[in-house]
């Protein structure tokens, strides 16, 4: 990767949340973090709830802004992107959320959810091609293309997560951000989705940011890892090294606690 321009570079990005009466949001704030994601890497962001790791996911996908610092995507400061470039950015960066029950439009069939990605970002495709492509994507994530006309509530959590992955992959993103994609699934289904990610990483030229609280999953899946605690990155490095010989006191405590 040496010499190549990183796909994502967060430089001293900070964000705070307005404190409302009786609601303390401070724990999700970020204070001046630096993150670099190179092409083809699977980068883990490990942290407990309130560490700010989901805020990082939202900043990288531009679902939320930041107060200070710089975010360079392919070397461009995203703050300078035009409207059109911002729209194109959305086909480069996609996200899969934790809760498969909430992340699909309940009033759209799963096929139309997948086709929506194509409709918006693959304008050259005709309707028949979109339908065919959506079917292929559903098959690719391990679903039956014939189930396309069903609604999300007819699927289990694991199947919905597969649909969400198909929808994200439909635009052929360069970067896929996964925000705790396994956490709300049953143990046996977690393993299925984990296997799906492993296959996706192998088959597609994907760069992945994998946000998780699960040390063991991060160790298995990620090349590099950032460990976050209370809005700061406390340790970073090769996942293998950091998660076996932690240098930071918090990382060590976390590793010791994990079952």
């Amino acid at each position, binding site marked *: 990767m040496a010499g190549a321009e990183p796909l994502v570079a967060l430089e001293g990005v900070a964000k705070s949340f307005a404190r409302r009466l009786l609601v303390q949001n401070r724990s999700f704030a970020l204070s001046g973090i630096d993150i670099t994601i190179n092409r083809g890497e699977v980068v883990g962001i490990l942290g407990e709830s309130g560490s700010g790791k989901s805020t990082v996911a939202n900043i990288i996908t531009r679902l939320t802004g930041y107060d200070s610092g710089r975010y360079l995507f392919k070397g461009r400061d995203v703050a300078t992107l035009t409207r059109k470039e911002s729209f194109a950015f959305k086909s480069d960066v996609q996200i899969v959320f934790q809760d498969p029950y909430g992340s699909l439009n309940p009033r759209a069939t799963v096929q139309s959810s997948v086709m929506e990605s194509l409709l918006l970002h693959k304008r050259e495709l005709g309707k028949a091609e979109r339908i065919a492509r959506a079917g292929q994507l559903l098959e690719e994530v391990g679903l039956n293309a014939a189930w396309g006309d069903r609604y999300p509530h007819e699927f289990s959590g694991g199947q919905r997560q597969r649909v969400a992955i198909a929808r994200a992959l439909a635009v052929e993103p360069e970067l896929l951000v996964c925000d705790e994609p396994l956490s709300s699934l049953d143990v046996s289904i977690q*393993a299925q989705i*984990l296997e799906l990610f492993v296959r996706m990483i192998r088959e597609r030229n994907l760069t992945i940011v994998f946000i998780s609280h699960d040390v063991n999953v991060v160790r298995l899946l990620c090349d590099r890892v950032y460990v976050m605690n209370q809005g700061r990155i406390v340790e970073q490095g090769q996942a293998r090294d950091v998660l076996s010989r932690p240098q930071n006191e918090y990382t060590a405590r976390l590793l010791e*606690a994990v079952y």
Partner: protein
Amino acid sequence: MTHPTLAPEEPLLKVEDATIALRVGGRTMVSGVSFAVNRREVFGVVGESGSGKTLLTRTLFGLQDDARLTAGRVTFEGRTLPLEGYGAAVRGLLGHAIGYVPQDPFSSLNPSMRIGKQITEAIYLAKGWPMGAERTREAAIALMAEVGIPEPALAFDQYPDQFSGGMRQRIVFAIALSQEPKLLVADEPTTALDAITQRRVIEMMLDRSRRHGLAVILISHNLELLRQSVGRIAVLYGGQLLNIVPAADVGTHAAHPYTEALFACIPTREKALADIRSIPGEPVGAGFGTSGCAFASRCAYAEPVCLTAPLPLNAGITSGFSACLLGRGAQ
């Protein structure tokens, strides 16, 4: 991990052939479950969502309003509880002989009452007579110290929302322990907590069990957590009891195919990516009944007989039990 030695005495809790049905519609959700928990034993119950683990324990301890025990025999401290009016009978034990810790530490405390008051109230209720304000306060503070609340004298006058989830769960434990129960039932007590807090709360509980001879039933979806924490594990799937296995044997000795498959799903400290194997298909819901094995449709070893034959029941309440129709995992 040291395992409490199994005394030859009568088990603390014995459940024989428990069948649980919904009150509305009468559908049987859990059938033919038998197990025994010995004094001082830490006993685990594992299952995925829909396995019936929560329904089973909540109904056994009189906390589930929409289901009831329709058949079976439950014996606590040698006394058999009547099937008729079971809920009321077991609730009579709840709060002194049996303590219960629910999953959610955020909704199980009264938000508008100082935590000291909530604990002293529990002590009053357990003792049945007032001990005098000063002595009760001391007892409560001692209890809070024991469950690991820092500066308990200060915490005594604070409200639940001034504490983190882990601290709140400790307070819930303190309330459950204030009644000096013989059996503590903890239903996913750490699921809502962070890893570091989870480990501390579980260890506090195990420590309490060791030092006071408290029997614990720990219910969890996390087989690895149970493997490292408890003595024996009951494995539920589709409302059936498939396996009772010594925790030390999980991953090392042959067990029921579902137990083995479930363990193969879990990324642990030791495993490599190649060691993770998912189970195809989706978990079945509770209410599978007793003809055929609920896991047969996903089982790698399944043969036609697995779909139809009556499921073996744990009639003898042996400590190692496998319901596998092919005899896998039998001791």
